[in-house]
């Protein structure tokens, strides 16, 4: 028998699935197709590899969602991941080794997040402009530090994160648990309140500035550590490796029902969205579709999935 509090909590959580039915359905269909075409994926090792491929997209989708929930957006995700990979690959050679790299990434994520947060939350600049400008700055800095791929990530770390172990899967589970905990704090609930009605949240005594600041800092840290993961995958840093992730993050969030106006959507939607895109890419890759066709199909499936609920509402209204 659940207590009153737990009942309320889980009921609220359950209701956040509203509107995600279509996405979950499409996801299951494609997962089944994928498993049907390539039964080998069901083995532990292959599954671990698949999750490793998905993991960076999942991370940046989560980072984008945190910001979008507050009514903002982040266009600098890709360059930030690149910079993260560059910083990781150049600091881990230093005297502090892996620890030094982790500290450097924490400083990078917190610093960049605080700067964006200060502009958006305190200066009231539009997030789209701040992060667009930032994307150029970060790209430039990454190229200054490391004009071409290089640096070094300890093989032990590469093996741990992106080797044959299902580490990525465990990290994802950990990420989800931490997110659930954060969303159960006043700051976490504040994300949605601020995105929905910033003025009302302020009048209710929510510190809108703190909520937005922490959102940008959390998001930037997720992006920086995605950079570490990507560097571990390749064994070196690459100043341009994150580029496709900006649009992938936004696409996954939108696919997952996260709204541009704030307040709307849930992390599970964005994660499901990024998973669907990963499966699609894999299916099309194995089917030997040319890269250009892959982009077209990806775009069409995003539009189709996003319009499913819209079509349903307009049908309901018409009847």
């Amino acid at each position, binding site marked *: 028998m659940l*207590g*009153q*509090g*737990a*009942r*309320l*909590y889980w*009921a*609220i959580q*359950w*209701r956040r699935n*509203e509107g995600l039915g279509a996405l979950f359905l499409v996801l299951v269909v494609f997962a089944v197709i994928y498993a049907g075409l390539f039964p080998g994926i069901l083995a532990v090792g292959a599954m671990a590899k698949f999750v490793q491929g998905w993991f960076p997209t999942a991370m940046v989708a989560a980072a984008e969602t945190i910001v979008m929930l507050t009514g903002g957006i982040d266009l600098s995700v890709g360059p930030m991941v690149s910079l993260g990979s560059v910083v990781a690959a150049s600091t881990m050679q230093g005297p502090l080794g892996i620890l030094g790299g982790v500290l450097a990434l924490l400083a990078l994520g917190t610093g960049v997040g605080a700067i964006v947060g200060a502009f958006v939350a305190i200066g009231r600049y539009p997030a789209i402009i701040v992060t667009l400008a930032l994307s150029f700055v970060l790209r430039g800095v990454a190229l200054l530090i490391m004009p071409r791929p290089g640096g070094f990530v300890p093989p032990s770390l590469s093996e741990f994160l992106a080797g044959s172990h299902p580490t990525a899967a465990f990290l994802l589970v950990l990420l989800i648990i931490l997110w659930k*905990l954060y969303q*159960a*704090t*006043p700051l976490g*609930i504040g994300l*949605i*309140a601020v*995105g*929905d*009605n910033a*003025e*009302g*949240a*302020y*009048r*209710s*005594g*929510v*510190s809108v500035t703190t909520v937005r600041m922490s959102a940008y800092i959390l998001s930037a840290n997720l992006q920086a550590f995605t950079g570490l993961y990507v560097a571990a995958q390749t064994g070196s840093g690459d100043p341009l490796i994150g580029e496709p992730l900006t649009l992938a993050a936004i696409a996954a969030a939108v696919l997952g029902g996260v709204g541009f106006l704030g*307040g*709307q959507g849930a992390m599970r939607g964005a994660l499901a969205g990024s998973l669907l895109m990963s499966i699609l890419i894999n299916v099309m890759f194995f089917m030997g579709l040319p890269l250009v066709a892959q982009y077209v199909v990806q775009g069409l499936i995003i539009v189709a999935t996003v319009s499913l609920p819209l079509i349903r509402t307009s049908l309901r209204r018409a009847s």
Partner: protein
Amino acid sequence: MGVQQAVLGARSVSKAFFGNPVLREVSIELVAGRIHALLGENGAGKSTLINLLSGTLRPDSGDILVDGHPIASLTPQEAHALGIAVVQQELSLAPHLSIAENIGLGAYPRRGGIVDYGRLAAAVAEIAKELELIEPLDMAVGRLPLGRRQIVEIAKALYIKPRVLILDEPTSSLSAPDVAILMKLVRRLRDRGVAILYISHRLNEILDFCETVTVLKDGSVTADRPLAGLGPNGLVRLMVGRDPRNLFPPYASRSTGALVLETKGFRAAGAIDVDFELCRGEILGIGGLVGHGQEDFMMGLYGAIRAEAEEFRVFADGVAARSAPFATVAEANAAGIAYVPADRRKEGLLLPHSIDFNLLLPLFASRSLERRRGVEETAITERLAQRLNIRGDRRRPAQALSGGNQQKVALSKWLALEPSVLLLNDPTRGVDVETKREIYLALRAMAAEGKAVVLLSSDTPELVHLCDRVMVFNKGRVAATLPHVEASEEAIVAAAMGVRNAPTLEGEPV
């Protein structure tokens, strides 16, 4: 009174926005266990006063007093901590959060940094019971109809166990049973010693259960007295009482009696069953409290929102030319009906573009593929600028103009089409006195030319001094149509409030 210490008060507070004074030296005292009414017309400064008392805004001068002590800079958080709760007209709810999370927002019980959903559920359930809030507490607020959201808003105020409760028109969107529940609750809170500030346009509610009233008029307190001995008409007099300044041109009717527009059983969104006729040369006023259907009526008339009517006729040269409401704004414009919106900055003008360009805009619709001819355009804009006395370089962007001059541009641009009917939505809102007078003169001149003018206004004296007839809306219907001689401020405000046939109080359903 006066013996008891005020829990919350203001001492000669003033507040101005962009140099426009909104409150001047206003004082008010809220005492424990007393329901205090705050009255005033739209724009009298009530909302600003509430925002000062709740820490959302800070006064330019004067003090906010809590338990008699001035508080240097009150923030909403501090106000919460001091037990000051506000139920605003504009809801402070987050539609995507659940009822329970909304009620607790800003003051969640916590255990180790995490929201304690157990204690939250218990506290919210108790309030929900008191307010007869039967919806499941995990439901997203966005799923509730507006009236029920208002109940959640009230629950949110109760959640912080307030010592002071400020209610800003809490009943305007409530159904009758919900109003009854709220009334019962407010009385119970008073008996528990809560100080209550009650803002409402429903005079019978105020007479029913408030003890003291403060009346605001143009940002100043015009009355601060016990309610005993005042009737609805007494209240209306307190709200209106001012000397009509020498602002209006002398009244002279130019109405010709030749119909230009006639409709029966007209409906559009919030406007219900409006019978309406308009003559050439007439200035017809539309009054009523904000949101009682008058804006919808206007928007329906010129095809901006869907409208239906049993009968609808537009006359051109005395011949009925049309039998159904307009489906699009372009159709209405083509038939000689133009609309000047209230929000000139968003709807009336393209601010970054030149005054000339703005003036020409309505003409472009009918000349979509014609080549533009500079000389002809200059002649047109020259003429339009003269008609409303728009001075200075017209190549400046529209945003360089003051509010009043922007309004003149937004109005005169339609004159290029030589419309036969001009619909004006609150043309003098936020406009300085001098420009107001110019606009009044222009309206008179248009009427003299035989155009029909429909003037929707929140400024009651305009309706009294300018209009040949005044239609007053209440709850979406025309509550009264007053000819010029009967259209006093008292009569208009009374009709807008649903007070009929003074001095008895009838016809106002609670």
